[in-house]
């Protein structure tokens, strides 16, 4: 069996005295879609932030494509092939759609950036028709498409998405998940964080249920859907506790 693309062992993230992530182990294989589901405050975003280099772990190790990420500054993590679509999208509202996309290719120096941006307009036609508009004028769903397209322009090996359905209408969420399926077909490994477990089950190969900074349950979507402990794990309730 080949080594996983992402291997996390014993990861701890602290904010002062508060532990947001408590000794988490996670493997993500190439081409896999792995979802982490859990309620607000479970530590999901902190986990992604640690992988992306936004927060420095207090303990544990993160290895990507066989290389340890510890000590890398935020700007260097994306260069390794990890792209993040953050919660809330964080598009640059005053910059045009085209400028937002160009920023997605910051770490690249090849001559194919222009062609890749044109391909983005084919994949996301609404972005093509609004390429000269300030991104702040896009709707929430369009901004989510822009955030995903921007992340893909770094040609990542691993795409991490934090709550891509948050704040979007159900029909828009359907579109976003259709896009994720299409991205998956392009052999991009996806690590997805979602509160909406049903959405995550529909796309993921494996799912981890996170609560209180730890993985409480792990398995395939089919296994977890059958597991009677799923609800308790999701909400961080100890089974059998009085």
């Amino acid at each position, binding site marked *: 069996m080949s080594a996983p693309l992402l291997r996390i062992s014993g990861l701890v993230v602290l904010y002062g005295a508060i532990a947001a992530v408590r000794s988490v182990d996670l493997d993500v294989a190439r081409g896999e879609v792995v979802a982490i589901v859990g309620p607000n405050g479970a530590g999901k975003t902190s986990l992604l932030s640690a992988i992306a280099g*936004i927060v420095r772990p207090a303990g544990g190790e993160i290895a990507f494509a066989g290389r340890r990420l510890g000590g890398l500054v*935020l700007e260097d993590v994306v260069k390794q092939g990890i792209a993040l679509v953050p919660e809330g999208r964080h598009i*640059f509202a*005053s*910059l045009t759609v085209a*400028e937002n996309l160009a920023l997605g290719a*910051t770490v690249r120096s090849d001559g194919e950036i222009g062609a890749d941006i044109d391909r983005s307009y084919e994949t996301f036609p609404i972005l093509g028709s609004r390429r000269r508009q300030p991104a702040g004028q896009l709707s929430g769903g369009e901004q989510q498409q822009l955030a995903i397209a921007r992340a893909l322009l770094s040609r990542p090996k691993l795409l991490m998405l934090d709550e891509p359905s948050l704040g979007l209408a159900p029909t828009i969420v359907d579109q976003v998940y259709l896009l994720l399926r299409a991205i998956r077909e392009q052999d991009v490994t996806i690590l997805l964080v979602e509160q909406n477990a049903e959405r995550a089950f529909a796309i993921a190969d494996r799912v981890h249920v996170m609560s209180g900074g730890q993985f409480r349950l792990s398995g395939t979507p089919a296994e977890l859907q059958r597991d009677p402990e799923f609800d308790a794990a999701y909400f961080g309730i100890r089974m059998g506790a009085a």
Partner: protein
Amino acid sequence: MDRIVQTLVDAVSVGGLYALTALGIGLIFGVMRLINFAHGELIMIAGYTLILLFGQPIAVAMIGAFVAAIVLALVTERVAFRPLRNADPATLLISSFALSFFLQKTLILLVGSRPKGIDFLPVLGRQIDVLGVRLQSLQIVTIVVSIALLGGLTWFLRATRFGLQMRAAAEDFRMARVLGVRANRVIAIAFAISGILAATVSCLVVAQTGIVQPRMGLQLVIIAFVGTVIGGLGSLSGAAIGGFLVGVATILLQALLPPDLRVFREAFVFVAVTLILLFRPQGLFPARGLRERI
């Protein structure tokens, strides 16, 4: 008619100087959320470099002034502000005040506090005839240089890769870094540009007044800071327009107020600023999506 044109040219020329100063402050605030009061000392060091190199060819003196301001800007970023990059804005503000005082007092220790006279670019003191109106060459040069520099900076920010990265960093520094924009490089370029702006202002002010003194930059920076605030902190165009408006208002008040009220010129400007901020606390041209920096 002559007087009106002369007053307007004067207003635009002073407005241009404040716009350049405000832009230097706005640029650093954009990428670091730092209100850099030590920007005044960049103006000061460029002025004293002109004194130091007086007697050399003008080009040498000016290049020296630009190099001094750029180097000081980069050194202050590296030594004073980079270690505090994750500190809260109040700490950064206090640090910039401390740096400003430290540089000013060090200079006073070295060369004294008395203003020093210099006959810099006397050719610009000549009157020239423009469409039948006699104007000072320096005013025209100040306007042309201000427009050229503002235009050049606009081009840099709009048309270059570094400019795009700088605008992105000014709006959402953390997200820019997540995309791979290098924080140290963007901030260093911003400081270098602020040094260029400060040296330009210094050359123009020294040519205009013929005096170099330790507080020459601080006075400009305080007024330009007010312009940055009314323009909208975090917005580069807002900073330039705000600085320009404050400069224009100052000169127009000087011309229009009755002679016995002219001494209160700044008070009128600050009342106008207060009124603007009462109705638009975010400034006239606020930045969109101003977010926390890392």
